[in-house]
């Protein structure tokens, strides 16, 4: 008997006993739903925690400062940098050429004077006056490769790569204006005046003249790429920095001769972060990376994942036992049918195959339904949680569709059902062929 014939026969047999099949599938679906919703929740929690730790950037991200490494550079995730050291294109290329380095992105932080709009939209519900200039910094990043940087979009979007007229503002900027995260969207579309300062000296007299540009706020972000309230394109930061650097040193700000303020390096996986940091230190630059913290967090989260997966698996196992029980009962009822199958030539393996396929069909169907149900449950919970988070002015949760996880739940349910169906299938296969002709 081919697998295809066995599937057709099993499908018909399951369909004939609709009520029982529905109940059995439902029990598997509930078990699978419990497992998948717990796994989605734990996966989401893991992602959130790791996002928080890595500030939304890749877990294997390393920040390279424009400074020499200190003696204990590798003993800490965030060591104190040594003396200032210029980062130029040569250094960037050298670091990019190191083994196990996946990408290197330059960061340019530059001082900036910001003038927020004199009148903010009413929907922003700003609580602070905003008519004074803010003396802050803009952080220029490669906006074409933001996924490799510790930048998370909270509202709106990021500026277009190369744009001189679009910026994203940070949560700190919102706080300066007295705007909550929940109202941050109201700021999107408003204009800000940004001035790159430059000090002109005439004898002892110092005059500051800023190079002013206007920019539209297109998004709100959380970022750790550099210290500053504004995320801008590298081109914009470079123009502003060139203006500032051409002048005399600004009071209170160390002159920064470096071409780049910092680099953000991504290693080929968390396992290689220590090695890459050591090599960058060898090139002559101080590094920082939350590798120890991430490893510890991953360890703790893994324990939580195991516990939740265990709870879900218990549910699924109970459902699988239900399959076993239902099939044993079915075999008692179908002795005559088994006998007829054998009378018309079915070998033991054919009968075993039919019953295994039946069990697998129930498990697969239940797993599929359960995975969908689990996703629905997780999304419902996420909606409840998001309402709470929004009410507390916290950033909300985004649940994707974890296809691999859901597929593994379906596969798991099918495999468990097959395991549960093995004993009944063996028992059915061993039943005497005589059942076809007599109940003696």
């Amino acid at each position, binding site marked *: *008997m*081919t697998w295809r*014939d066995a599937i057709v*026969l099993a499908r*018909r*047999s399951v*369909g*004939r006993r609709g009520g029982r099949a529905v109940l059995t599938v439902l029990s598997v679906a509930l078990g699978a739903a419990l497992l998948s919703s717990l796994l989605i929740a734990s996966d989401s929690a893991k992602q959130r925690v790791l996002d928080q730790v890595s500030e939304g950037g890749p877990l294997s991200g390393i920040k390279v400062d424009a400074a020499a490494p200190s003696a204990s550079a590798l003993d800490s995730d965030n060591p104190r940098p040594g003396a200032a050291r210029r980062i130029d294109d040569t250094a960037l290329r050298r670091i990019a050429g190191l083994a196990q380095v996946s990408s290197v992105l330059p960061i340019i932080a530059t001082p900036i004077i910001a003038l927020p709009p004199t009148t903010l939209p009413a929907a922003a519900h700003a609580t602070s006056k905003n008519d004074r200039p803010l003396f802050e910094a803009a952080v220029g990043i490669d906006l074409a490769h933001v996924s490799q940087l510790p930048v998370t979009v909270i509202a709106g979007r990021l500026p277009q790569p190369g744009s001189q007229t679009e910026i994203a503002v940070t949560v700190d900027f919102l706080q300066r204006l007295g705007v909550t995260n929940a109202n941050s969207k109201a700021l999107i579309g408003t204009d800000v005046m940004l001035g790159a300062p430059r000090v002109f000296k005439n004898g002892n007299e110092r005059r500051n003249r800023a190079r002013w540009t206007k920019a539209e706020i297109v998004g709100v972000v959380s970022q750790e790429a550099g210290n500053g309230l504004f995320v801008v394109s590298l081109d914009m930061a470079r123009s502003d920095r060139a203006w500032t650097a051409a002048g005399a040193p600004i009071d209170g700000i160390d002159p920064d001769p470096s071409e780049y303020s910092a680099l953000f390096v991504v290693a080929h996986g968390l396992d290689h972060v220590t090695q890459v940091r050591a090599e960058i230190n060898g090139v002559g630059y101080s590094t920082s990376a939350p590798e120890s913290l991430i490893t510890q967090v991953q360890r703790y989260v893994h324990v939580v994942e195991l516990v939740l997966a265990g709870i879900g698996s218990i549910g699924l196992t109970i459902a699988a036992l239900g399959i076993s029980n239902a099939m044993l009962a079915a075999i008692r009822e179908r002795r*005559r*049918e088994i*006998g*007829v*199958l*054998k*009378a*018309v*030539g*079915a*070998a*033991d393996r*054919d009968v075993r195959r039919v019953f295994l396929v039946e069990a697998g069909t129930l498990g697969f169907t239940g797993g599929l339904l359960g995975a969908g149900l689990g996703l629905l449950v997780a999304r419902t919970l996420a909606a409840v949680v998001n309402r709470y988070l929004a009410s507390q002015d916290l950033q909300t949760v985004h649940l994707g569709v974890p296809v691999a996880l859901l597929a593994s739940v379906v596969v798991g349910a099918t495999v468990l059902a097959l395991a549960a169906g093995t004993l009944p299938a063996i028992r059915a296969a061993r039943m*005497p*062929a*005589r059942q*076809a*002709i*007599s109940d*003696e």
Partner: protein
Amino acid sequence: MASPADVAADPNERAGVAVHATGLRFRYDTPEGELVVLDSIDFDVDAGSVVAITGASGSGKTTLLSVLGGLDRPHGGSVLIAGHDLAQLDRDEMARYRREVVGFVFQDFGLLGQLTALENVELALTFERVSRRQRRARARELLGAVGLGDRLGHRPRALSGGEKQRVAIARALANEPRLVLADEPTGNLDPVATAVVLDMLLRVPVDHGSTVLIVTHDDAIAARADRRMHLIGGRIASA
């Protein structure tokens, strides 16, 4: 009368087979002790003949059919059919024997309720790894031959008793069996259906060359067989 040499002649030939049983014993183990159902019986059946097996309830006639069909293994003696000694076959060989040599017709039809008439007939070829197209063609042909060409898609519950038994006969013939075993084939049928089904069974040796053994209580049916084998208490009283 068949000789042992005849029954072992050519297991691949698609014609009726002779049956040669010697010292055939069968028993059931019951809580009260051993219950002998077939008590060292000897008999021969000629290839292509129709034999009626009669006897009172409990005389062992259904068990004899079960043993000859490879549904049960004899506990003693030998049964030679188509080159096989049924007492020596293991489970897989026994399944193969049933699949290739035997066709069954049951009193209560033995149709699977979840399958259509066409699929029930196809089922007999499913285990032979015959292609789906060939199976379907063969099943259509056989159902046409028993007058059910317009009932192919009907489930058993939508058929009358006589129609169900005609589907069962078509299924029994699907694998071109050399031995057709019928257990009270008209036991659940009205007189009209009985006549139709009996005519069909009696034509099997003529149309297909198979040997036919019919277990029956009905003397009228037994009278139409080539030969009658009467069992009393697990022994052949007359043959």
